[in-house]
């Protein structure tokens, strides 16, 4: 049984921005969309390990800062024709705070 862990307040993440959570499973990037939805991905691009948290967020994707791969935020899958997947973490918004579930 895994539990939800409080990460930060929503307003501590810029819209279309991200923050990095240090965890026992490595760094996890938490992204905030324009409409305040939040997503969590392992902070490592499947291509060459670039920190996705540092990329530009647009639509429901982030562009890796190292070589420009586009990664879908909902599932961590690279946008075709690129291939690869970053591990996805459950993240939710509750009462103005962002919660993360470690699996």
């Amino acid at each position, binding site marked *: *049984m895994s*539990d*939800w*862990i*409080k*990460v*930060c307040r929503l307003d*501590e993440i*810029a*819209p*279309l*921005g991200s*923050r*990095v*959570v*240090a*965890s*026992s499973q490595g*760094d996890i990037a*938490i992204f905030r969309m*324009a409409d305040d939805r939040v997503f969590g991905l392992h902070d490592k691009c499947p291509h*060459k*390990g*670039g*920190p996705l948290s*540092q*990329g*530009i*967020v*647009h*639509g429901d994707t982030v*562009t890796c*800062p*190292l*070589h*420009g791969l*586009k990664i879908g935020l909902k599932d961590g899958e690279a946008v075709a*024709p690129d291939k690869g997947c970053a591990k996805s973490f459950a993240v939710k918004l*509750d009462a103005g705070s962002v*919660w*993360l579930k*470690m699996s």
Partner: protein
Amino acid sequence: MKKQKLVVVGNGMAGIRAVEELLKLAPDLYDIAVFGAEPHPNYNRILLSPVLAGEMTINDIILNPLGWYADNGIRLHVGKQVTKIDRTARKVIAADGTEEDYDRLLLATGSTPFMLPIPGNDLPGVISYRDIKDTDEMIATAATHKHAVVIGGGLLGLEAANGLKLRGMDVTVVHLMPWLMERQLDKPAADMLKTSLEARGLKFLLERQTEALIRGESGRVAALRFKDGLEIPADLVVMAAGIRPNTALAESARLYCNRGIVVNDTMQTYDPRIYAVGECVAHRGVAYGLVAPLFEQAKVCANHLANFGIARYTGSVTSTKLKVTGIDLFSCGDFMGAQGGKGGTDEIVLHDPSGGVYKKLVVKDDTLVGAVLYGDTADGAWYFQLVKDGKNIHELRDHLMFGQNHVGDVGHAGVSKAAAMSDEAEVCGCNGVCKGDIVKAIKSQGLFTLEDVRKHTKASSSCGSCTGLVEQILASTVGGAYTPADTKDKPMCGCTDHSHGVVRQTIRERHLLTISEVMHYMEWKTSNGCASCRPALNYYLISTWPGEAKDDPQSRFVNERAHANIQKDGSFSVVPRMWGGLTTPAELRVIADIAEKYEVPTVKMTGGARIDLLGIKKEDLPRVWADLGAAGMVSGHAYGKSIRTVKTCVGAEHCRFGTQRSMDMGVKLERMLFGMGAPHKVKLAVSGCPRNCAEAGIKDIGVIGVDSGYELYVAGNGGIKTEVAQFMCKVKSDEEVMEYSGAFLQLYREEGFYLERTCHYVARVGLDHVKAAVVDDPAKRKDLFERLLLALKDYQDPWQEAVQKPVVRREYELIRIKEIAAEVQS
């Protein structure tokens, strides 16, 4: 609501491309049915020649497998020829009785080969060269018969002849005209082509008119007789004497046809419910037989079918590339020039018969209007671009013939001719992509554009220095299907149809101040852009409206958001500022202390002659900057689309040759330009004498001291493409150096497109334009300079902001969580 019905007659490249474009724009608008007379799904007709030559198989050239139709909910009727359109009842009827109703109809019936009206043209063994069936028959015949005759020495005829020769046949090409490919080549180029094909064993009979095909004892064709009585053996006759738009169906439905189904600029026929694209169409009196224009038509047609109603097709400039392995030939535009009967053209010609190279450029009123290249087609794509863009080539004229020098600089071992490369040769040095990988992707994925190739192979997608090579490979693989995009009106990215130029202009004219305002006003297709357009928009806004538009950190690449340079492992590098490259023992001590305190793994000198501290964790950045700040130092912009460094030599301060105080001048310039954002990085150098130890000749602005003052050079580049800076003017004083340099940079800041270096900017607008504003017009120069100073006036040291403002500092802070206890919600 019930979907509208779209019926497409013609399952070829034009019709299906239109459907693909439509599905991109409006995937759910129509219920779609497609009729194809051939029993195959859509295939790449252009690649029939490689199939004939034995280089590929039919399966390799299928563009849309049957599954594609199913996945998109398209009803496909293959092997069914539509014989009737009932415009009143709005339905089409196929020969086998199949019917489909339509709300809108798209005709893409293509063309039919022209069969010479001579006796014997219906004998077995007499075929055209149009589809898979013809190709199969040619391959089969080559295995059993000896003599082939190809009638028609055009593009298609020569490809057929070459393929049959490779299949072991004895091939003669018969041509009515005095030289081969007269619609694409002038005589000198055609003669070289003929010589080269003869060396491969092909035979040619030019200026011969065929009178009859003669039947042999077996019943199939056996010989061919000319008007002059000559007879040659022929077991196979391939008619490649041209194509005719296939208008029979349209004519039977009483649609207006005149050498093609007549359409307007929206690809609509005289019946507004019926559209037409492809080889069957006559647009402004022209029927196109190459695939590039068909794709442009398909795109426009899809736009209207999707009810967008904003696209227009205004005709195409076509280019030709012969797909015969090992022969490099290219032509585009009005390549005949004055000989073609049009006055006022000049020809620039280079002809080296022994060397096998011929190049002719046709110039009219300072624009390039056509080109023929034989033997060295490296610059074909560039010339084609110049023709399409109608660019003024006045400044290029004296070296236009020698090409763009675009390829072969760095990253691919100096090779500039794709044809000479082996499949294993590395084309893209950034991403390690070989020629064979690119060719394979183009063929197997059905790629037609540079963008496609970049997406699928990554070649040319990083530094771009191999773009010219990739274009050549693309052109030689897909032949006439290749069309470089218009650079002039090229959309910024997939989020918009507007070009950089139009967006810049609109932001200025409409006084737009935020990214969302721009996206809303200019009807962006995506909700918040992409990683390519947002940084550009952000730059355009703050450079156009300094003090009014607000910077958006989330629309900046990480380096400019974090104010340090990201490295491959996600750490950052910090380059402490050394104005003009000068430092002191005290500053060096501070840097050394920081390097030890934060366990910096690597310390090195940068290309701009500054000290680089590499491998700093993002979390530590604000602390590093605080330590620098405490010692009175600032960090440096060693990463941004901004002023980088001003490199200097020792100059008159110490050097026995120095004529001007270059260190002092460099410091003044670097301080003046502190924090200046730009479309791309900006590097300066100041040398104290013409020995030029600061390498000012390859900088965006190079200042060279001479006894009587300074020479100013602009638009140099030492990177991907080495460009020597061009002399702009000579000035007398330090103040003038600052004013002229500042004015030049402000002009670039106001007019440059995002990610355009000064060398590209000046190549686009011309040095004369720059001089007119910066040198010749003192009032303009002063205005530009004042606008630059105004924009820089309120620049805040971003590193101290990160140190002092908690909201900004958050960017650097890691969130640490307790995974077991603490605040847990179940």
